[in-house]
């Protein structure tokens, strides 16, 4: 009979059906990767660890888009808008509270994530409660990101000072680090903070997609009308997923601004807006694990390419995206796993 109620959510997160890596070899791989990241600072300079933190900090945003697009069938091109909103709001709040950096950090985090979630709630209400066609959501979220970028570019000058903090237009805004008491999250500490955040986001989302609500999200990707006629408010389910994804983008935004102590309107430009879509599509959108790995690798790749002054970075990622969409639309990692399985089966057969 079907109904032994699912035991404990953490167990479901690692054995549930909705991602790769749910058997001992998968766990072993995850454990090894995690161990590698935990031990890495022992052999690396603070500078290298800070760089690696940068490759990691976009993972929450990518995981959010994976939830939304890969699991829920809702494509957003505007995740960077929520990234930017969280970053700017954190900067304004924490920047105005430099007298009490601990409180400033905490309130900044809450306000930043709250603002990202609220924007998603309002924007998503109009989109999802209108039950628009699927292609309208990516278009409107992209427009949101671009208009936000334009707006932030217009905020130069003293008219756009919030308390002590100037938004700074295209010159950008300076932002204080995270600080608890006298402890400042920099270098190795920031690295471990990022690793911990990524791990928590990953496990949290694995729990989510393998829970009942995750099952419903997948159902409405497959057939929204069928799902509604099983008694689910499709609009609400979509809106909730949209807000979760926005808050995850916000988490990446917070990590980003406390990593570089700086933000400019370019974080929500057209080129930046395309990046989360590329990470998720190339990795394999309906696998959180694949998205996490590929986001790390692609961030490293583009960072290395563009810091070498290579103007082909955008072209390479563009070509990669087109090629993957043409030849492995389910994503690189799922395709590799499938090829591996086939090869194994061939070997067994011979």
């Amino acid at each position, binding site marked *: *009979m*079907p*109904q032994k109620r699912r035991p404990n959510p953490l167990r479901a997160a690692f054995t549930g*059906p909705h991602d790769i890596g749910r058997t001992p070899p998968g766990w072993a791989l995850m454990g090894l990767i995690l161990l590698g990241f935990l031990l890495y600072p022992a052999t690396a300079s603070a500078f290298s660890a800070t760089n690696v933190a940068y490759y990691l900090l976009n993972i929450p945003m990518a995981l959010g888009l994976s939830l939304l697009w890969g699991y829920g069938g809702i494509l957003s091109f505007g995740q960077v808008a929520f990234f930017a909103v969280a970053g700017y709001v954190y900067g304004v709040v924490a920047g105005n509270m430099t007298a009490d950096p601990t409180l400033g950090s905490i309130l900044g985090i809450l306000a930043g994530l709250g603002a990202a979630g609220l924007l998603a709630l309002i924007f998503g209400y109009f989109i999802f409660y209108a039950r628009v066609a699927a292609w309208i959501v990516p278009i409107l979220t992209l427009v949101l990101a671009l208009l936000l970028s334009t707006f932030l570019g217009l905020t130069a000058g003293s008219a756009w000072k919030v308390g002590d903090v100037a938004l700074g237009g295209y010159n950008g805004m300076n932002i204080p680090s995270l600080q608890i008491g006298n402890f400042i999250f920099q270098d190795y500490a920031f690295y471990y903070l990022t690793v911990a955040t990524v791990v928590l986001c990953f496990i949290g989302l694995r729990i989510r997609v393998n829970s*009942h609500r995750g*099952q*419903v999200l*997948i*159902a409405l990707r*497959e*057939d929204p*009308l*069928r*799902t*509604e*006629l*099983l*008694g*689910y*408010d*499709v609009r609400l389910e979509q809106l909730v997923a949209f807000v979760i994804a926005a808050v995850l983008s916000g988490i990446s935004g917070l990590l980003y601004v406390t990593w570089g102590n700086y933000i400019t309107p370019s974080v929500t430009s057209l080129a930046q807006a395309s990046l989360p879509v590329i990470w998720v599509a190339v990795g394999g959108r309906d696998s959180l694990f694949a998205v996490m790995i590929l986001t790390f690798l692609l961030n490293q790749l583009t960072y290395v390419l563009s810091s070498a002054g290579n103007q082909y970075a955008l072209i390479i990622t563009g070509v990669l995206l087109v090629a993957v969409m043409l030849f492995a639309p389910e994503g690189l990692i799922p395709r590799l796993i499938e090829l591996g399985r086939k090869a194994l089966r061939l070997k067994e057969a011979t």
Partner: protein
Amino acid sequence: MPDPAKTILHAIGLQKRFGGVVAARDVDFALTEGELRCVIGPNGAGKSTFFALLAGIQPPDAGRIELEGEDITRLKPFQRVRKGLGLTFQTNRTFHAMTLRQNLDTAGRGGEEPAPFRAALTAFGLDRGLDRPVTALAHHERQWLEICMALRGRPSVLLLDEPTAGMSPVETRRTSDVLRELNSGGLSIIVVEHDIAFVRATAQMVTVLHQGAIFAEGTMAEITAREDVRAIYLGKVREETA
């Protein structure tokens, strides 16, 4: 236990047009609690449209729908389902990317398994191999699974749109048996059907739809005795019966 004096589902003056086609014309329809009703009518008579109006998939141009005395005309489809409508589609719409268990869990909305659901699952032989993907099922098993999914959500009225389409006579009979079993347990059911043998074996009362309107209503014997019904539905021309 069902109260046969109580109307569980009531449609009053339902109207629906698609451009020039009248798909529902002044449909007045009452289902008493614990009834098993068959709705028949030629292709395009408006049977699926009638269900779409009941479920809220289409808004009616005019008219009213009551479920257990409560006006549900303005409710969204998911709200009607939560109030007790369960429904299957004319074309099978189980989730093909999922296993049987996932389909049924999704249908359960996290609630307990109702007894009629368990009974049907066992009677259809679907209680084993729940971790198979839906794609491993034969056509008739998918139809049965969709019935079980509707039952899993604890409906008080079950609406089935041509559940036996494409089934063999044996499978059709088994479907009829299970539906009558469910009905004798108190469940109210409306079935849209084409298969006259199925209707004869299953229905207590039959409603005939024609060009969007209710053309006739009565027991199977009364319906089949009416020549005008035979003319429009049973495909028999007057001369033949004369």
